[in-house]
Protein backbone atom coordinates (compact mmCIF):
# COMPACT_ATOMS: atom_id res chain seq x y z
CA UNK A 1 0.00 0.00 0.00
CA UNK A 2 1.50 3.33 -1.02
CA UNK A 3 -1.06 5.54 0.72
CA UNK A 4 -3.20 4.81 3.73
CA UNK A 5 -5.31 7.62 5.23
CA UNK A 6 -7.54 6.89 8.19
CA UNK A 7 -9.96 9.50 9.63
CA UNK A 8 -7.81 12.40 8.47
CA UNK A 9 -9.17 15.76 9.66
CA UNK A 10 -7.78 19.15 8.90
CA UNK A 11 -9.01 22.32 10.60
CA UNK A 12 -7.95 25.85 9.94
CA UNK A 13 -8.18 28.39 12.68
CA UNK A 14 -9.71 31.64 11.48
CA UNK A 15 -9.66 34.13 14.29
CA UNK A 16 -11.68 32.44 17.01
CA UNK A 17 -13.42 30.05 14.66
CA UNK A 18 -12.20 26.63 13.74
CA UNK A 19 -12.97 25.85 10.11
CA UNK A 20 -12.96 22.15 9.31
CA UNK A 21 -11.69 21.61 5.79
CA UNK A 22 -11.18 17.86 5.73
CA UNK A 23 -13.62 15.70 7.64
CA UNK A 24 -12.65 12.13 8.48
CA UNK A 25 -11.09 11.38 5.14
CA UNK A 26 -10.31 7.71 4.59
CA UNK A 27 -8.39 6.78 1.48
CA UNK A 28 -6.15 4.00 0.28
CA UNK A 29 -4.04 3.61 -2.78
CA UNK A 30 -2.07 0.59 -4.00
CA UNK A 31 1.38 0.88 -5.42
CA UNK A 32 1.24 1.40 -9.20
CA UNK A 33 -2.28 2.80 -9.13
CA UNK A 34 -3.36 5.90 -11.05
CA UNK A 35 -6.07 7.83 -9.22
CA UNK A 36 -7.85 11.11 -9.95
CA UNK A 37 -9.39 13.30 -7.23
CA UNK A 38 -12.26 15.47 -8.38
CA UNK A 39 -14.35 18.01 -6.62
CA UNK A 40 -15.60 21.58 -6.73
CA UNK A 41 -13.43 24.55 -5.92
CA UNK A 42 -12.80 24.98 -2.21
CA UNK A 43 -13.73 21.41 -1.39
CA UNK A 44 -10.33 20.66 0.11
CA UNK A 45 -8.48 18.92 -2.72
CA UNK A 46 -5.27 20.93 -2.39
CA UNK A 47 -5.44 20.65 1.38
CA UNK A 48 -5.59 16.88 1.09
CA UNK A 49 -2.82 16.84 -1.46
CA UNK A 50 -0.58 18.90 0.86
CA UNK A 51 -1.06 16.37 3.62
CA UNK A 52 -0.34 13.45 1.30
CA UNK A 53 2.68 15.33 -0.05
CA UNK A 54 4.09 15.76 3.48
CA UNK A 55 3.94 19.53 3.10
CA UNK A 56 1.46 19.78 5.93
CA UNK A 57 0.38 17.73 8.93
CA UNK A 58 -3.20 16.62 9.52
CA UNK A 59 -4.99 17.90 12.61
CA UNK A 60 -5.97 14.33 13.48
CA UNK A 61 -6.02 10.88 11.97
CA UNK A 62 -3.33 8.53 10.72
CA UNK A 63 -1.46 8.74 7.49
CA UNK A 64 0.94 6.08 6.31
CA UNK A 65 3.06 6.74 3.26
CA UNK A 66 4.78 3.66 1.88
CA UNK A 67 4.04 2.02 5.23
CA UNK A 68 5.67 4.82 7.25
CA UNK A 69 3.65 6.86 9.75
CA UNK A 70 4.05 10.52 8.90
CA UNK A 71 2.36 11.90 12.01
CA UNK A 72 4.84 13.51 14.38
CA UNK A 73 7.73 13.77 11.96
CA UNK A 74 9.76 16.96 12.20
CA UNK A 75 10.46 19.48 9.47
CA UNK A 76 13.71 17.89 8.31
CA UNK A 77 12.28 14.38 8.25
CA UNK A 78 9.37 15.64 6.13
CA UNK A 79 11.85 17.28 3.75
CA UNK A 80 13.67 13.99 3.46
CA UNK A 81 10.46 12.12 2.58
CA UNK A 82 9.48 14.75 0.00
CA UNK A 83 12.93 14.45 -1.49
CA UNK A 84 13.09 10.65 -1.69
CA UNK A 85 9.50 9.47 -2.11
CA UNK A 86 7.40 12.21 -3.64
CA UNK A 87 7.39 13.99 -6.96
CA UNK A 88 5.31 17.16 -7.28
CA UNK A 89 3.70 18.65 -10.37
CA UNK A 90 1.92 21.98 -9.93
CA UNK A 91 -0.68 23.78 -11.99
CA UNK A 92 1.65 26.78 -12.36
CA UNK A 93 4.76 24.68 -13.17
CA UNK A 94 6.92 26.38 -10.48
CA UNK A 95 10.13 26.32 -12.48
CA UNK A 96 12.98 28.61 -11.45
CA UNK A 97 12.82 31.27 -14.16
CA UNK A 98 16.52 32.09 -14.37
CA UNK A 99 17.73 28.51 -14.60
CA UNK A 100 17.76 26.32 -17.67
CA UNK A 101 15.53 23.28 -18.01
CA UNK A 102 18.51 21.09 -17.18
CA UNK A 103 19.38 23.07 -14.04
CA UNK A 104 15.77 22.94 -12.90
CA UNK A 105 15.73 19.17 -13.26
CA UNK A 106 19.11 18.82 -11.54
CA UNK A 107 17.91 20.68 -8.45
CA UNK A 108 16.39 17.73 -6.52
CA UNK A 109 19.45 15.64 -7.37
CA UNK A 110 21.71 18.18 -5.71
CA UNK A 111 19.52 18.11 -2.60
CA UNK A 112 19.81 14.32 -2.63
CA UNK A 113 23.60 14.59 -2.70
CA UNK A 114 24.02 12.92 -6.08
CA UNK A 115 27.55 13.48 -7.46
CA UNK A 116 27.76 16.31 -9.96
CA UNK A 117 28.56 14.28 -13.05
CA UNK A 118 25.78 11.78 -12.38
CA UNK A 119 23.34 14.64 -11.79
CA UNK A 120 23.76 15.88 -15.29
CA UNK A 121 23.45 12.44 -16.83
CA UNK A 122 20.31 11.63 -14.91
CA UNK A 123 18.73 15.04 -15.59
CA UNK A 124 19.41 14.71 -19.32
CA UNK A 125 17.85 11.24 -19.27
CA UNK A 126 14.77 12.53 -17.44
CA UNK A 127 14.38 15.36 -19.97
CA UNK A 128 14.76 12.92 -22.85
CA UNK A 129 12.12 10.72 -21.22
CA UNK A 130 9.58 13.60 -21.42
CA UNK A 131 10.60 14.36 -25.00
CA UNK A 132 12.66 17.50 -24.33
CA UNK A 133 16.14 16.14 -25.08
CA UNK A 134 16.62 19.00 -27.53
CA UNK A 135 15.57 21.73 -25.09
CA UNK A 136 17.86 21.10 -22.13
CA UNK A 137 19.54 24.50 -22.20
CA UNK A 138 16.33 26.50 -22.71
CA UNK A 139 15.14 28.86 -20.01
CA UNK A 140 11.48 28.48 -18.88
CA UNK A 141 10.60 31.74 -20.63
CA UNK A 142 11.72 30.16 -23.91
CA UNK A 143 9.40 27.15 -23.49
CA UNK A 144 5.68 26.71 -24.15
CA UNK A 145 3.30 25.91 -21.30
CA UNK A 146 3.16 22.22 -22.23
CA UNK A 147 6.95 22.06 -22.43
CA UNK A 148 7.28 23.76 -19.07
CA UNK A 149 4.95 21.22 -17.51
CA UNK A 150 6.99 18.40 -19.01
CA UNK A 151 10.17 19.91 -17.53
CA UNK A 152 8.34 19.96 -14.19
CA UNK A 153 7.41 16.30 -14.65
CA UNK A 154 11.03 15.46 -15.45
CA UNK A 155 12.05 17.27 -12.26
CA UNK A 156 9.42 15.36 -10.26
CA UNK A 157 10.56 12.00 -11.65
CA UNK A 158 14.33 12.46 -11.60
CA UNK A 159 14.79 11.11 -8.05
CA UNK A 160 12.61 8.07 -8.85
CA UNK A 161 9.87 8.88 -6.30
CA UNK A 162 7.38 6.35 -4.97
CA UNK A 163 4.46 8.52 -6.01
CA UNK A 164 3.77 11.40 -8.35
CA UNK A 165 1.39 14.05 -6.98
CA UNK A 166 -0.13 16.40 -9.52
CA UNK A 167 -2.38 19.33 -8.58
CA UNK A 168 -4.33 20.26 -11.69
CA UNK A 169 -1.40 19.55 -14.00
CA UNK A 170 -3.42 20.53 -17.06
CA UNK A 171 -5.18 23.49 -15.49
CA UNK A 172 -3.02 26.05 -17.23
CA UNK A 173 -2.64 24.19 -20.52
CA UNK A 174 -4.58 24.11 -23.79
CA UNK A 175 -6.26 20.81 -24.58
CA UNK A 176 -3.53 19.57 -26.90
CA UNK A 177 -0.71 20.15 -24.42
CA UNK A 178 -2.96 18.70 -21.74
CA UNK A 179 -3.36 15.56 -23.80
CA UNK A 180 0.41 15.25 -24.16
CA UNK A 181 0.79 15.48 -20.41
CA UNK A 182 -1.89 12.82 -19.97
CA UNK A 183 -0.10 10.55 -22.44
CA UNK A 184 3.08 11.01 -20.46
CA UNK A 185 1.31 10.18 -17.18
CA UNK A 186 -0.21 7.13 -18.80
CA UNK A 187 3.14 5.78 -19.96
CA UNK A 188 4.82 6.59 -16.64
CA UNK A 189 2.05 4.67 -14.92
CA UNK A 190 2.57 1.77 -17.30
CA UNK A 191 6.20 1.75 -16.12
CA UNK A 192 4.89 1.29 -12.59
CA UNK A 193 4.79 4.84 -11.21
CA UNK A 194 1.93 5.53 -8.77
CA UNK A 195 0.10 8.73 -9.72
CA UNK A 196 -2.38 10.81 -7.72
CA UNK A 197 -3.88 13.65 -9.71
CA UNK A 198 -6.28 16.46 -8.87
CA UNK A 199 -8.46 17.77 -11.64
CA UNK A 200 -11.66 19.64 -12.38
CA UNK A 201 -11.98 18.12 -15.78
CA UNK A 202 -13.96 14.88 -16.08
CA UNK A 203 -12.23 14.01 -19.38
CA UNK A 204 -8.81 14.34 -17.76
CA UNK A 205 -10.03 12.37 -14.74
CA UNK A 206 -11.14 9.57 -17.01
CA UNK A 207 -7.49 8.96 -17.95
CA UNK A 208 -6.97 7.60 -14.45
CA UNK A 209 -7.88 4.05 -13.46
CA UNK A 210 -9.99 5.26 -10.55
CA UNK A 211 -11.77 8.46 -9.58
CA UNK A 212 -12.63 9.71 -6.12
CA UNK A 213 -14.78 12.73 -5.39
CA UNK A 214 -14.40 15.15 -2.52
CA UNK A 215 -17.16 17.52 -1.54
CA UNK A 216 -17.06 19.90 1.45
CA UNK A 217 -14.14 18.01 2.87
CA UNK A 218 -15.84 14.64 2.70
CA UNK A 219 -14.29 12.05 0.40
CA UNK A 220 -16.41 9.53 -1.44
CA UNK A 221 -14.56 6.56 -2.84
CA UNK A 222 -15.40 5.93 -6.45
CA UNK A 223 -16.01 2.45 -7.77
CA UNK A 224 -13.01 0.30 -7.93
Amino acid at each position, binding site marked *: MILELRDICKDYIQGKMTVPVLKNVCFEMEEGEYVAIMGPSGSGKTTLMNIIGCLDQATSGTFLLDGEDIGGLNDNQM*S*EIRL*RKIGFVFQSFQLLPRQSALENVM*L*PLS*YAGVPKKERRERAVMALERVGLGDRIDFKPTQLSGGQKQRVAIAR*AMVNHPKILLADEPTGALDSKSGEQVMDLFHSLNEEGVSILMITHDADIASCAQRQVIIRDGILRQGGR
Partner: protein
Amino acid sequence: MLENIRLSFQGIWSHKMRSFLTMLGIIIGIASIISIVSTIKGTNEQIKENLIGAGNNSIQIELYQGDSAYWMDQGAPQGVSAPNQEVLEEVLKIPEVKSASFYNKRDYADSIYYKNTSMDGGKLLGIDRNYLSAAGYDICAGRGFADSDYTQIKKVAILDDKAASTLFQHENPLGKTIELKGEPFTVVGVAKASEEFEPVINSWNDYYTYYGEQMAGFVLVPTASWPILYGFDEAQNMVLQANSTEEMSDAGRKAAEVLNTNLVSDQEQFGYKAQDALEKAKNLQKLSASTNNQLLWIASISLLVGGIGVMNIMLVSVTERTSEIGLKKAIGARKRTILGQFLTEAAVLTSLGGVIGVAAGNVLAKVISRISGTPAAISIPAIVGSVAFSMLIGIIFGLLPSIKAANLNPIDALRHE
Protein backbone atom coordinates in the same frame (compact mmCIF):
# COMPACT_ATOMS: atom_id res chain seq x y z
CA MET B 1 28.91 25.35 -1.52
CA LEU B 2 30.68 26.20 -4.79
CA GLU B 3 27.31 25.78 -6.46
CA ASN B 4 25.81 28.28 -4.01
CA ILE B 5 28.60 30.76 -4.71
CA ARG B 6 28.09 30.40 -8.44
CA LEU B 7 24.34 30.91 -8.05
CA SER B 8 24.97 33.93 -5.81
CA PHE B 9 27.10 35.56 -8.48
CA GLN B 10 24.40 34.77 -11.02
CA GLY B 11 21.81 36.41 -8.77
CA ILE B 12 23.99 39.47 -8.14
CA TRP B 13 24.68 39.80 -11.85
CA SER B 14 21.03 39.60 -12.81
CA HIS B 15 20.26 42.52 -10.47
CA LYS B 16 23.38 44.56 -11.17
CA MET B 17 21.98 47.92 -10.19
CA ARG B 18 20.33 46.75 -7.01
CA SER B 19 23.34 44.68 -5.96
CA PHE B 20 25.65 47.62 -6.49
CA LEU B 21 23.47 49.94 -4.43
CA THR B 22 23.25 47.32 -1.71
CA MET B 23 27.01 46.98 -1.67
CA LEU B 24 27.57 50.73 -1.70
CA GLY B 25 27.55 51.09 2.08
CA ILE B 26 30.11 48.31 2.41
CA ILE B 27 32.17 49.73 -0.46
CA ILE B 28 32.30 53.18 1.11
CA GLY B 29 33.09 51.80 4.56
CA ILE B 30 35.86 49.50 3.38
CA ALA B 31 37.28 52.13 1.01
CA SER B 32 37.57 54.66 3.83
CA ILE B 33 39.15 52.11 6.15
CA ILE B 34 41.66 51.03 3.54
CA SER B 35 42.61 54.57 2.62
CA ILE B 36 42.97 55.57 6.27
CA VAL B 37 45.05 52.52 7.09
CA SER B 38 47.25 53.04 4.02
CA THR B 39 47.83 56.64 5.03
CA ILE B 40 48.65 55.65 8.61
CA LYS B 41 51.00 52.97 7.40
CA GLY B 42 52.65 55.23 4.85
CA THR B 43 53.13 57.97 7.43
CA ASN B 44 54.53 55.51 9.94
CA GLU B 45 57.00 54.08 7.48
CA GLN B 46 58.04 57.57 6.55
CA ILE B 47 58.57 58.55 10.19
CA LYS B 48 60.55 55.42 10.86
CA GLU B 49 62.64 55.85 7.76
CA ASN B 50 63.38 59.47 8.49
CA LEU B 51 64.20 59.03 12.14
CA ILE B 52 66.07 55.81 12.04
CA GLY B 53 67.63 56.42 8.68
CA ALA B 54 66.64 53.62 6.38
CA GLY B 55 68.93 50.68 6.90
CA ASN B 56 71.67 52.72 8.59
CA ASN B 57 70.80 51.62 12.16
CA SER B 58 73.18 54.02 13.82
CA ILE B 59 72.57 55.30 17.34
CA GLN B 60 74.08 58.28 19.10
CA ILE B 61 75.06 57.81 22.74
CA GLU B 62 75.56 61.16 24.32
CA LEU B 63 76.87 62.37 27.63
CA TYR B 64 74.06 63.78 29.71
CA GLN B 65 74.13 66.17 32.55
CA GLY B 66 70.91 65.60 34.42
CA ASP B 67 68.08 65.37 31.90
CA SER B 68 69.68 67.07 28.94
CA ALA B 69 72.56 66.19 26.70
CA TYR B 70 75.76 67.87 27.78
CA TRP B 71 76.60 70.63 25.35
CA MET B 72 80.24 70.18 24.47
CA ASP B 73 80.45 73.72 23.06
CA GLN B 74 80.67 75.08 26.58
CA GLY B 75 83.91 73.15 26.97
CA ALA B 76 84.39 69.52 27.87
CA PRO B 77 83.15 68.80 31.41
CA GLN B 78 85.77 68.94 34.10
CA GLY B 79 86.37 65.84 36.16
CA VAL B 80 84.63 63.48 33.74
CA SER B 81 86.83 60.70 32.47
CA ALA B 82 87.67 60.35 28.81
CA PRO B 83 86.81 56.93 27.44
CA ASN B 84 89.63 54.57 26.60
CA GLN B 85 90.26 51.67 24.24
CA GLU B 86 89.17 48.99 26.76
CA VAL B 87 85.72 50.52 27.10
CA LEU B 88 85.35 50.53 23.34
CA GLU B 89 86.37 46.86 23.19
CA GLU B 90 83.79 46.08 25.83
CA VAL B 91 81.05 47.86 23.87
CA LEU B 92 82.05 45.98 20.74
CA LYS B 93 81.48 42.70 22.61
CA ILE B 94 77.77 43.46 22.98
CA PRO B 95 76.09 41.01 20.57
CA GLU B 96 73.70 43.61 19.10
CA VAL B 97 76.52 46.03 18.28
CA LYS B 98 78.12 45.87 14.86
CA SER B 99 80.56 48.74 15.17
CA ALA B 100 81.17 51.56 17.60
CA SER B 101 83.22 54.70 17.70
CA PHE B 102 84.02 57.53 20.12
CA TYR B 103 84.10 61.06 18.88
CA ASN B 104 84.66 64.58 20.08
CA LYS B 105 82.10 67.11 19.11
CA ARG B 106 81.40 70.81 18.89
CA ASP B 107 77.97 71.67 17.56
CA TYR B 108 78.52 75.27 16.57
CA ALA B 109 82.13 75.65 15.61
CA ASP B 110 82.20 79.22 14.35
CA SER B 111 85.74 79.53 13.20
CA ILE B 112 85.78 77.35 10.11
CA TYR B 113 87.11 79.19 7.08
CA TYR B 114 88.22 78.59 3.54
CA LYS B 115 89.89 81.79 2.39
CA ASN B 116 87.20 84.32 3.25
CA THR B 117 84.24 81.98 3.23
CA SER B 118 83.07 80.96 6.67
CA MET B 119 80.81 78.14 7.68
CA ASP B 120 78.57 79.15 10.53
CA GLY B 121 76.91 76.67 12.79
CA GLY B 122 78.84 73.78 11.30
CA LYS B 123 79.70 70.79 13.41
CA LEU B 124 83.24 69.87 14.14
CA LEU B 125 83.96 66.27 15.06
CA GLY B 126 87.07 64.47 16.16
CA ILE B 127 86.75 60.89 14.99
CA ASP B 128 88.54 57.56 15.19
CA ARG B 129 88.86 55.07 12.35
CA ASN B 130 85.48 53.41 12.96
CA TYR B 131 83.39 56.53 12.96
CA LEU B 132 82.44 56.74 9.30
CA SER B 133 81.09 53.20 9.12
CA ALA B 134 79.39 53.37 12.52
CA ALA B 135 77.66 56.64 11.71
CA GLY B 136 76.72 55.46 8.24
CA TYR B 137 78.92 57.60 6.00
CA ASP B 138 80.77 56.77 2.83
CA ILE B 139 83.72 58.59 1.34
CA CYS B 140 82.57 59.92 -2.01
CA ALA B 141 85.71 61.78 -3.01
CA GLY B 142 89.31 61.64 -1.91
CA ARG B 143 90.15 59.30 0.98
CA GLY B 144 89.31 58.58 4.58
CA PHE B 145 91.80 59.00 7.41
CA ALA B 146 94.84 56.72 7.21
CA ASP B 147 96.73 55.25 10.15
CA SER B 148 99.53 57.71 9.55
CA ASP B 149 97.09 60.60 9.99
CA TYR B 150 96.59 59.41 13.57
CA THR B 151 100.13 58.36 14.43
CA GLN B 152 101.70 61.48 12.98
CA ILE B 153 98.91 63.75 14.27
CA LYS B 154 98.42 65.21 10.82
CA LYS B 155 96.27 68.28 10.33
CA VAL B 156 93.89 66.73 7.84
CA ALA B 157 90.10 67.08 7.52
CA ILE B 158 87.16 65.38 5.83
CA LEU B 159 84.12 67.46 4.92
CA ASP B 160 80.64 66.19 4.48
CA ASP B 161 78.96 67.11 1.21
CA LYS B 162 77.04 70.00 2.78
CA ALA B 163 80.11 71.56 4.34
CA ALA B 164 81.96 71.05 1.06
CA SER B 165 79.35 72.96 -0.90
CA THR B 166 79.09 75.69 1.75
CA LEU B 167 82.82 76.33 1.87
CA PHE B 168 83.86 75.58 -1.68
CA GLN B 169 80.75 76.06 -3.80
CA HIS B 170 81.89 74.63 -7.12
CA GLU B 171 85.59 74.36 -6.35
CA ASN B 172 87.13 70.97 -5.75
CA PRO B 173 87.90 70.89 -2.02
CA LEU B 174 90.44 68.06 -2.19
CA GLY B 175 93.95 69.17 -1.29
CA LYS B 176 92.77 72.66 -0.30
CA THR B 177 93.57 74.10 3.06
CA ILE B 178 90.87 75.22 5.46
CA GLU B 179 91.29 77.08 8.69
CA LEU B 180 89.95 75.61 11.94
CA LYS B 181 90.40 77.93 14.91
CA GLY B 182 93.25 79.53 13.06
CA GLU B 183 95.01 76.20 12.38
CA PRO B 184 95.44 75.11 8.73
CA PHE B 185 93.98 71.71 7.92
CA THR B 186 94.22 69.96 4.53
CA VAL B 187 91.00 68.54 3.09
CA VAL B 188 91.64 64.91 2.10
CA GLY B 189 88.13 63.61 1.50
CA VAL B 190 84.43 64.28 1.21
CA ALA B 191 81.91 62.05 2.99
CA LYS B 192 78.24 61.50 2.27
CA ALA B 193 75.51 59.75 4.22
CA SER B 194 75.18 56.26 2.77
CA GLU B 195 71.38 56.49 2.86
CA GLU B 196 69.73 59.69 1.78
CA PHE B 197 66.24 60.44 2.91
CA GLU B 198 64.13 63.46 2.49
CA PRO B 199 61.71 64.71 5.11
CA VAL B 200 58.16 64.61 3.87
CA ILE B 201 56.12 65.09 7.00
CA ASN B 202 56.26 68.61 8.23
CA SER B 203 53.78 68.88 11.03
CA TRP B 204 55.70 67.96 14.13
CA ASN B 205 58.14 70.33 15.76
CA ASP B 206 59.79 67.46 17.49
CA TYR B 207 60.56 65.91 14.22
CA TYR B 208 62.07 69.05 12.76
CA THR B 209 64.26 69.67 15.76
CA TYR B 210 65.72 66.28 15.33
CA TYR B 211 66.11 66.72 11.66
CA GLY B 212 67.55 70.21 11.97
CA GLU B 213 70.67 68.80 13.57
CA GLN B 214 71.54 66.99 10.44
CA MET B 215 70.96 69.92 8.15
CA ALA B 216 74.16 71.85 8.86
CA GLY B 217 77.35 70.48 7.38
CA PHE B 218 80.24 69.15 9.41
CA VAL B 219 83.99 68.90 9.40
CA LEU B 220 85.80 65.80 10.61
CA VAL B 221 89.33 65.66 11.92
CA PRO B 222 91.26 62.71 13.43
CA THR B 223 90.83 62.38 17.23
CA ALA B 224 94.57 62.54 17.51
CA SER B 225 94.51 66.07 16.12
CA TRP B 226 91.65 67.20 18.34
CA PRO B 227 93.91 68.51 21.13
CA ILE B 228 95.41 70.96 18.60
CA LEU B 229 91.99 72.62 18.54
CA TYR B 230 90.66 71.89 22.02
CA GLY B 231 91.94 70.22 25.17
CA PHE B 232 93.45 66.81 25.88
CA ASP B 233 91.46 63.85 27.19
CA GLU B 234 88.04 65.26 26.63
CA ALA B 235 84.97 63.26 27.48
CA GLN B 236 83.49 61.91 24.32
CA ASN B 237 80.21 60.81 22.85
CA MET B 238 79.75 57.54 21.05
CA VAL B 239 78.07 56.49 17.85
CA LEU B 240 77.33 52.87 17.25
CA GLN B 241 75.71 50.75 14.66
CA ALA B 242 73.36 47.94 15.55
CA ASN B 243 73.12 44.71 13.58
CA SER B 244 69.50 45.41 12.71
CA THR B 245 66.83 48.03 13.19
CA GLU B 246 65.05 45.82 15.73
CA GLU B 247 68.19 45.58 17.84
CA MET B 248 68.82 49.32 17.90
CA SER B 249 67.13 49.94 21.24
CA ASP B 250 68.91 47.05 22.95
CA ALA B 251 72.29 47.92 21.47
CA GLY B 252 71.94 51.54 22.61
CA ARG B 253 70.78 50.65 26.09
CA LYS B 254 73.49 48.05 26.71
CA ALA B 255 76.24 50.26 25.34
CA ALA B 256 75.13 53.14 27.55
CA GLU B 257 75.27 50.79 30.55
CA VAL B 258 78.84 49.79 29.71
CA LEU B 259 79.83 53.43 29.31
CA ASN B 260 78.21 54.38 32.59
CA THR B 261 79.87 51.62 34.63
CA ASN B 262 83.21 52.80 33.31
CA LEU B 263 82.43 56.46 33.78
CA VAL B 264 84.47 58.18 36.41
CA SER B 265 83.06 61.51 37.39
CA ASP B 266 83.32 63.69 40.45
CA GLN B 267 79.86 64.98 39.75
CA GLU B 268 76.81 62.79 40.27
CA GLN B 269 74.62 63.98 37.46
CA PHE B 270 76.76 62.88 34.51
CA GLY B 271 75.76 59.80 32.58
CA TYR B 272 75.44 58.36 29.09
CA LYS B 273 72.13 57.99 27.36
CA ALA B 274 71.29 56.43 24.02
CA GLN B 275 69.19 58.49 21.66
CA ASP B 276 66.52 55.97 20.99
CA ALA B 277 65.38 56.80 17.50
CA LEU B 278 63.16 53.75 17.37
CA GLU B 279 61.40 54.84 20.53
CA LYS B 280 61.08 58.34 19.15
CA ALA B 281 59.64 56.98 15.93
CA LYS B 282 57.14 54.87 17.85
CA ASN B 283 55.94 57.87 19.81
CA LEU B 284 55.41 59.88 16.67
CA GLN B 285 53.65 56.94 15.08
CA LYS B 286 51.33 56.70 18.05
CA LEU B 287 50.52 60.36 17.70
CA SER B 288 49.57 60.00 14.05
CA ALA B 289 47.71 56.76 14.66
CA SER B 290 45.55 58.13 17.45
CA THR B 291 44.13 60.90 15.27
CA ASN B 292 43.49 58.43 12.51
CA ASN B 293 41.93 55.89 14.83
CA GLN B 294 39.01 58.24 15.32
CA LEU B 295 38.54 58.30 11.58
CA LEU B 296 38.59 54.51 11.61
CA TRP B 297 35.70 54.46 14.07
CA ILE B 298 33.67 56.71 11.83
CA ALA B 299 34.42 54.46 8.87
CA SER B 300 33.31 51.46 10.91
CA ILE B 301 29.97 53.09 11.51
CA SER B 302 29.48 53.37 7.77
CA LEU B 303 30.18 49.63 7.58
CA LEU B 304 27.48 49.05 10.16
CA VAL B 305 25.06 51.13 8.11
CA GLY B 306 26.14 49.16 5.05
CA GLY B 307 25.41 45.93 6.89
CA ILE B 308 21.92 47.09 7.82
CA GLY B 309 21.37 48.01 4.17
CA VAL B 310 22.34 44.49 3.16
CA MET B 311 19.94 43.04 5.72
CA ASN B 312 17.14 45.23 4.42
CA ILE B 313 17.64 44.21 0.80
CA MET B 314 18.00 40.56 1.76
CA LEU B 315 14.66 40.72 3.58
CA VAL B 316 13.05 42.19 0.48
CA SER B 317 14.71 39.53 -1.61
CA VAL B 318 13.37 36.74 0.62
CA THR B 319 9.83 38.13 0.25
CA GLU B 320 10.26 38.44 -3.49
CA ARG B 321 11.50 34.91 -3.80
CA THR B 322 8.93 33.33 -1.50
CA SER B 323 7.58 31.03 -4.17
CA GLU B 324 11.08 29.96 -5.22
CA ILE B 325 11.88 29.11 -1.60
CA GLY B 326 8.54 27.29 -1.25
CA LEU B 327 9.19 25.24 -4.33
CA LYS B 328 12.70 24.33 -3.21
CA LYS B 329 11.39 23.19 0.15
CA ALA B 330 8.56 21.26 -1.51
CA ILE B 331 10.96 19.29 -3.68
CA GLY B 332 13.08 18.35 -0.68
CA ALA B 333 15.44 21.17 0.26
CA ARG B 334 16.22 21.06 3.95
CA LYS B 335 16.13 24.14 6.19
CA ARG B 336 19.86 24.36 6.33
CA THR B 337 20.12 24.13 2.54
CA ILE B 338 17.99 27.25 2.22
CA LEU B 339 19.82 28.91 5.10
CA GLY B 340 23.15 28.14 3.43
CA GLN B 341 21.96 29.49 0.12
CA PHE B 342 20.89 32.86 1.53
CA LEU B 343 23.87 33.21 3.85
CA THR B 344 26.20 32.51 0.96
CA GLU B 345 24.41 35.08 -1.11
CA ALA B 346 24.75 37.73 1.59
CA ALA B 347 28.40 36.86 2.21
CA VAL B 348 29.25 36.87 -1.50
CA LEU B 349 27.48 40.20 -1.92
CA THR B 350 29.34 41.89 0.95
CA SER B 351 32.67 40.24 0.11
CA LEU B 352 32.35 41.55 -3.41
CA GLY B 353 31.58 44.93 -1.89
CA GLY B 354 34.69 44.50 0.25
CA VAL B 355 36.86 43.72 -2.77
CA ILE B 356 35.53 46.72 -4.68
CA GLY B 357 35.99 48.80 -1.52
CA VAL B 358 39.62 47.70 -1.20
CA ALA B 359 40.29 48.68 -4.80
CA ALA B 360 38.53 52.02 -4.35
CA GLY B 361 40.34 52.58 -1.04
CA ASN B 362 43.74 52.08 -2.60
CA VAL B 363 42.92 54.49 -5.39
CA LEU B 364 41.61 56.97 -2.82
CA ALA B 365 44.79 56.60 -0.73
CA LYS B 366 46.89 57.38 -3.82
CA VAL B 367 44.78 60.45 -4.56
CA ILE B 368 44.99 61.69 -0.95
CA SER B 369 48.72 61.08 -1.02
CA ARG B 370 49.05 63.13 -4.21
CA ILE B 371 47.01 66.02 -2.91
CA SER B 372 48.28 66.27 0.66
CA GLY B 373 51.80 65.01 0.16
CA THR B 374 51.50 62.42 2.91
CA PRO B 375 52.74 59.05 1.79
CA ALA B 376 50.51 55.97 1.47
CA ALA B 377 51.54 52.36 1.76
CA ILE B 378 49.42 49.36 0.84
CA SER B 379 48.80 47.17 3.86
CA ILE B 380 48.23 43.51 2.99
CA PRO B 381 46.82 42.57 6.43
CA ALA B 382 44.35 45.44 6.14
CA ILE B 383 43.23 44.23 2.72
CA VAL B 384 42.79 40.62 3.81
CA GLY B 385 41.15 41.78 7.03
CA SER B 386 38.75 44.08 5.21
CA VAL B 387 37.53 41.40 2.84
CA ALA B 388 37.19 38.91 5.68
CA PHE B 389 35.39 41.50 7.77
CA SER B 390 32.94 42.38 5.01
CA MET B 391 32.23 38.68 4.57
CA LEU B 392 31.54 38.52 8.29
CA ILE B 393 29.16 41.48 7.99
CA GLY B 394 27.32 39.61 5.24
CA ILE B 395 26.98 36.55 7.45
CA ILE B 396 25.87 38.55 10.50
CA PHE B 397 23.37 40.76 8.73
CA GLY B 398 22.31 37.99 6.35
CA LEU B 399 21.45 35.72 9.24
CA LEU B 400 18.05 37.18 10.05
CA PRO B 401 16.77 37.16 6.43
CA SER B 402 18.22 33.68 5.88
CA ILE B 403 16.51 32.27 8.95
CA LYS B 404 13.30 33.87 7.76
CA ALA B 405 13.71 32.15 4.40
CA ALA B 406 14.59 28.77 5.91
CA ASN B 407 11.55 28.84 8.18
CA LEU B 408 9.04 29.67 5.44
CA ASN B 409 6.18 27.24 5.35
CA PRO B 410 6.28 25.65 1.88
CA ILE B 411 2.50 25.72 1.47
CA ASP B 412 2.20 29.41 2.19
CA ALA B 413 5.27 30.00 0.07
CA LEU B 414 3.87 28.08 -2.89
CA ARG B 415 0.51 29.83 -2.61
CA HIS B 416 2.33 33.17 -2.80
CA GLU B 417 2.12 34.55 -6.31
